[in-house]
């Protein structure tokens, strides 16, 4: 592992994204547009539904976007031969994965920063806790998407397959994370499943921030999500093989 190499990977990934203007714009703008759409949908509703589900979506959007972007980019890296070239060079697997996580983490910071600023500033999302913490949680969620995306790209041989992992891995987590039905009202089997899914903790962290000023629960939820990130990156690194058949 070396900082120079890790940063080289980060710089290169960002250079590729910068060149791809359309992706860049979508990364930054899409979550904010979707939040605005949601706000508009409930504008005339008497119940404070936007305040209830808005925070969960601030956790979910960066997760989905980064999952998709990462799984497709790493798959491209595997199929174009560049990964093989890199692994034949003095590049640690950790350099590669952390380089990616760092690049997408930075993009996530911009993306979430804009989404939180618009949601809280313009759309009037009520937040009891700290706004800065909200951004931190959103970034960790995005990095979670990156880690899982890196992992599943190992199991996909085409970009079609990689995209199919989204309904397989992401959608069940969205259904069970407490967005549609509070987690403690789920049938007990499903509640147990939702207890071991990382997105549940990401959404819990957001909900705590909105409803209370205490940060203890937020930190413990965040620790669970970070644990999943580390596990995802470690498993992803095990799938990067220097020797292939």
């Amino acid at each position, binding site marked *: 592992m070396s900082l*120079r*190499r890790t*940063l*080289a*990977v980060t*710089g*290169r990934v960002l*250079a*590729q994204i910068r*060149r*791809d203007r359309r992706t860049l714009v979508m990364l930054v703008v899409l979550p904010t547009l979707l939040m605005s759409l949601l706000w508009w949908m409930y504008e005339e509703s008497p119940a404070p539904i936007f305040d209830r589900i808005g925070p969960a979506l601030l956790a979910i959007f960066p997760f989905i976007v980064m999952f998709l972007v990462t799984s497709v980019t790493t798959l491209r890296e595997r199929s*174009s*031969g*560049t990964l*093989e*070239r*890199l*692994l*034949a*060079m*003095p*590049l640690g697997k950790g350099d590669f994965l952390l380089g990616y996580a760092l690049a997408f983490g930075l993009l996530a910071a911009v993306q979430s920063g804009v989404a939180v600023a618009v949601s809280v500033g313009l759309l009037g999302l009520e937040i009891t806790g700290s706004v800065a913490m909200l951004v931190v949680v959103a970034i960790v969620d995005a990095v979670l998407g990156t880690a899982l995306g890196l992992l599943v790209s190992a199991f996909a041989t085409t970009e079609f397959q990689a995209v199919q992992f989204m309904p397989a891995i992401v959608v069940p987590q969205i259904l069970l994370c407490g967005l549609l039905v509070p987690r403690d009202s789920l049938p007990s089997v499903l509640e147990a499943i939702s207890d071991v899914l990382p997105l549940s903790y990401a959404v819990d962290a957001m909900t705590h921030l909105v409803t209370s000023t205490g940060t203890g629960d937020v930190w413990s939820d965040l620790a669970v999500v970070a644990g999943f990130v580390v596990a995802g990156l470690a498993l992803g690194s095990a799938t990067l*093989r*220097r*020797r*292939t*058949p």
Partner: protein
Amino acid sequence: MNNVVEASGLRVVRGKREVLHGLDFSIRAGEVTGLLGPSGCGKTTLMRALVGVQAKVTGSLTVLGRPAGAAALRPKIGYVTQEASVYEDLTVTENLKFFTRVLGAPRSAVSDAIETVDLIDHKDQVVRDLSGGQRSRVGLAAALLGSPELLVLDEPTVGLDPVLREQLWGTFRDLATAGVGVIVSSHVMDEAERCDRLLLMRDGAFLADGSPAEIKQKASADDIEHAFLALVRGAVR
């Protein structure tokens, strides 16, 4: 002269099939060694084994004094695959700068490599917009960056303009003169004469190992193409 590669009883299994059947050979520093044979004979597998990215390799394979694939070898080997293996959405310079940083090579390596492969006019172009031959030259430039002691080049001259091909063989020659071990694969027999030494390969085994002159003499043929045919008939008979 010292050997950069020594192999004995080298076997590789892919899937359930053995594709290299117990090869014994060595590659010397300061020489251009040609690995010649038809498509599918195992040239790429052999090169991947040298570089240390091929799975299921048995037998003994030593590269620059260490077992092939050792971490200490990675900065010392330049490897060009048949695909360009560079980032399509970056420019030539951006690609090479990135690989230079990964290798920890000096910055000047970028412009030197661009000059060597004759891409100065295209250095700020995005790789996606380059022709096939230009792309493969970017891949070659990337392999030259770290001043490698062993260059493993898998069909580097396919589809190139004859003038450029001539130039690149000149470059391989210069590198060898500077002491680098160069191994170049090709399925085009007319490139054989440019090598100091040839390994003629067919179906995962060597038909012949020697200088072009020695091989032609052994097979009583005027050129390597006919020598190859004569050796195949001899082996079958």
